[in-house]
């Protein structure tokens, strides 16, 4: 029982590091880091495209926005 805390800590360290390592490997394998420019614009689409702000105070007209 005396070694139980050490065993728990060891399991936690291995599991945390292991999952992080696996996530990194998965990201590289699936090409997540292949095209950074495409990644940056992935949150935009035709309906909410680049260059269009999407939030304003209720009483401010959108045409006031640059």
């Amino acid at each position, binding site marked *: *029982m005396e070694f*139980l*805390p050490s065993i*728990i*800590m060891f399991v*936690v360290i291995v*599991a*945390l590091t292991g*999952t*992080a390592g696996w*996530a*990194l490997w998965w*990201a590289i394998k699936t090409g*997540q*880091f292949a095209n*950074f*420019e*495409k*990644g*940056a*614009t*992935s*949150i*935009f*689409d*035709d*309906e*909410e*495209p*680049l*260059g*269009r*702000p*999407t*939030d*304003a*105070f*209720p*009483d*401010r*007209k*959108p045409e*006031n*926005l*640059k």
Partner: protein
Amino acid sequence: MTTAILNPSKSPSGHEPADGPLAQARKYSELFQRSEIDLSCRYPVLAFFVSGVFWLLVGSILAMLASIKMHNPHFLSDWSWLTFGRVRPAHLSTVAFGWGAMTGLGTLIWLMCRLCRTPLRFPAMLVIAAGTWNIGMICGTACLLTGYTTGIEWIEFPLWVGFILFVSFALVGIWAMYTFGARHAGHVYVSQWYLFGAIFWFPWLYATVYILEYLVPVKGVSQETIHWWFGHNALGVFFTPIGLATIYYLIPKVIGKPIYSYYLSILGFWSLALFYNWAGAHHIIGGPVPAWLVTVSIVGSMMMFIPVTTTAINHHMTTYKNFGVLRYSPTLRFTVFGAMSYTVVSVQGSLMSLKVYNEPFHFTHHTIAHAHLGLYGFYTMVLFGALYYIVPRLTAREWASSRTIRFHFWSCAIGILIYFVLLSIGGMIQGFEMNQAGDSLFKLMHSHGWWTGTKLFVEGFKYKNGAVPFIEIVENTRPWLISRSIGGGLMALGHFAFAGLFLVNLLGIGPKRQGPTLLRSDEEGYRKALQGDEGTEHDEPSEGNMARA
């Protein structure tokens, strides 16, 4: 049919007119998809948001009580449940695990659905998770106010309450993994990396600290090491990733341009993952712990300059040349304030790990000011920004009053600035005087003039004799503690104003939202577009996107 509608195929020729029927259909398809996602999120996310705002108000009241008691100890001291030793941990737990965690999880759920481009599945599971979390919070807060506490900062809730919160969190975690597996978006945006960090790391931390402090307790100084490993990481790998994920989504979306450097954002995430969890032991510098442990934590803290610098460059350069939008966008105003606070508090945090900085100011009010800049100036302000963006998309109602939004912002912003700046100064004076060989700063300035007095004070500090009577130091910090109550009062005022605005929105009072995320209003145009109508007689959905008034 629905699948075909949602995923209109490209023209066989491959030369599709930009404004042709298929392009229109695709545009409405995205509109339809986003509407569906927002509508599916409505009840689960609002359950987390409503709970979060409730705990914010409870936490604000407890904060004011604790703050006033610091300079007027007899204030409401006749009731045992309102004594400082109970009110203070109750404040921390309600704002961190009530407001911070619940609102953060609500934001996380919405962002996951948006970034995975998939409607929310199993909403009942998340509503149950929110309910379970609230049961845990009510039980935990009642325990703290009635005197049942573990006595360990950040995990004051009894073990069985911790278990309730853990079960609730596990439900959200399982849901997040399922949603990620069912995603329609191929690319994993940087915000999702941060969200996954928060989802994966927090249950490990929370379970580990409870196991090693209670179920299989470690002995001696190991307890403090484990304790601050958790305490520091709860901030760094749970609250911080949710805040940064929100910033990385909201700033580009509100301004309408991508983040300055996607490469730096990815570098920032992985360097945070690598270095942050080493830094916890800098909370016990000077304690009876192995020197190597403290040294490693200092190195880890200094390495945090990498993710902090990359994030700061990205936030600043993305907003650069678009600062004018801050005048219009409530979301951006809160979010950018939070992003700037993140840079300041992170740089300060790294420097505070250095022994020359840590020695005089540790165990003073300086540290309290630093913690509030992190969890309030950064995290809470970002969450307010997220609420202003997300809630109208869930309730299909615009915010009722921009004046109240402005009041909310300035009240909170000025409040936290007063709090941070003045309490930091008070903490510095406190720290110097506790290490002072001669008289206090005020006495020396009074008897020798401000310049000579300050020089004598600094010289006296070198000897670290602790010659200033403790009660004198306490009295000298009192004005700074009063200033904290003033700053905190302003923040609490802002919270109540926001809660009123939120309630009005939930009750359906105020202008109805006119925008593309409304499913019904665009259904007709969507159908016509599919039938070959280019939709010229309809409102352009992108215009509605901005015309939320």
